[in-house]
C-alpha cells in the first residue's frame, strides 16, 4: 500500500480520479474553480501586500443583503436570505475562509517536494530524458527554451482566460464553451510543434 502510493507514479486511472475529486473539494472550499495561472497572477499582484492581512470584522454578501433588506423594509426571505442561519450566534463569530494565492502556491511547491522526497527523486537541471532528447542544446540552450516557453505559458494562459488546470480541469467540469475553445488552441499548436520538433531531431 505504502509502496504503491508513495514510491511510484500513479497510473492514469488513479491520478485522474484523484484530481477529479480534488476539483470538487477545491470548489467546495473556495467557491472558485481550480486555476493556477490566475492564482499566479493574483500572487504577483499582491506581491508587496502583507502575507496575512489583519483580520477585520467580516461582513459576508448575505449579511450585507440582510442589512439592506431591513433598511428598506423588504422581507429578507424574498431575496433568498436565510435569516435563521445568518443570525445564529455561531454564524456571526465565524471568520470566512480567505483564498490566499501566495500560500496556495507555496503549498503546491511543498506538496511536490514531499512527493519527490518520498519517491527518492534526484535533483537535475533538465526535465528528464524526453526533454534532453527533444532539445539537445546544452544547459544554456535549454534555459533559453524554458524561458521562452515559460513566457508563452504565462502570456497565453492569461490571454486565453486560463491554463489547463483552469480550462481543462475547472472549465470543462462546468461545461464552459470558452474552455473547449482554449483547449482546442492548446492542442492545435502543441501537437503541431511537437511533431515538427520530433521530425527535426530525428
Amino acid at each position: 500500500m505504502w509502496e504503491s502510493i508513495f514510491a511510484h507514479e500513479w497510473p492514469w486511472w488513479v491520478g485522474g480520479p484523484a484530481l477529479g475529486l480534488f476539483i470538487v473539494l477545491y470548489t467546495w472550499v473556495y467557491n472558485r474553480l481550480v486555476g493556477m495561472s490566475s492564482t499566479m497572477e493574483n500572487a504577483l499582484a499582491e506581491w508587496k501586500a502583507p502575507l496575512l492581512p489583519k483580520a477585520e470584522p467580516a461582513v459576508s454578501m448575505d449579511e450585507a443583503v440582510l442589512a439592506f433588506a431591513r433598511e428598506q423594509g423588504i422581507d429578507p426571505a424574498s431575496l433568498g436570505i436565510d435569516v435563521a442561519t445568518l443570525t445564529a450566534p455561531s454564524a456571526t463569530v465565524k471568520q470566512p475562509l480567505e483564498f490566499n494565492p501566495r500560500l496556495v502556491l507555496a503549498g503546491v511547491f511543498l506538496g511536490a517536494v514531499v512527493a519527490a522526497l518520498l519517491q527518492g527523486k534526484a535533483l537535475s537541471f533538465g526535465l528528464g530524458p524526453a526533454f534532453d532528447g527533444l532539445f539537445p542544446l546544452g544547459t544554456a540552450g535549454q534555459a533559453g527554451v524554458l524561458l521562452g516557453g515559460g513566457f508563452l505559458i504565462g502570456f497565453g494562459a492569461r490571454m486565453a482566460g486560463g491554463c489547463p488546470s483552469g480550462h481543462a480541469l475547472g472549465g470543462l467540469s462546468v461545461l464552459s464553451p470558452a474552455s473547449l475553445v482554449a483547449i482546442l488552441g492548446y492542442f492545435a499548436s502543441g501537437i503541431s510543434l511537437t511533431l515538427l520538433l520530433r521530425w527535426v531531431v530525428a
Partner: protein
Amino acid sequence: MKNVLINIGMGMLFGFIVAKAGVADFGHVSGMFALTDFHMYGVIGTAVPIGALGLILLRGKRGLNGRTLPPPKKASHPGNFPGGLLFGIGWALTGACPGTSIVQLGSGYWGAAITIVGAGLGILAYRRVHKKYFSWQLDSCG
C-alpha cells in the same frame, strides 16, 4: 491560523496529486502532443467527468465559506483561441503550465525555476498588452 493551514494544505494536496499523477512530467506531456502516450488523456479524461459530476452534486449547496455553489462558468472572449495557441507552444516546450511548473521545481527539476520566471514575465506582459489593445472583460478565475 486555520486560514493559513487550509490554504497551504490545499496547495500541498494539489502539488502532491499533480506530482504523483505525472501530469507535470515532460515525457508524458510531450507524448500526449506526439499522440504516442495515452497517460495524459487518461488522467484528463477521468478527472473531468468525476469533477463535473461532483460539481453537479454540489449545486445549490453551501460551501465551506458559506456561499452557494458552484461558481459561474468561465466567460467566453476573443482571446480564448489565440491565447490557447500561444499557450500550447509554451506547453510543448516546457511540459508545464503555470501550476505544473511549480510542481516540476518541487520535484527536483530546478531548470523549471526558469520556466516560472518566464511565466511570471508573461503574465505581467499580458496585463500591459491587454490594457493597451484589448477591450474584453478578463475572467477573474481560471
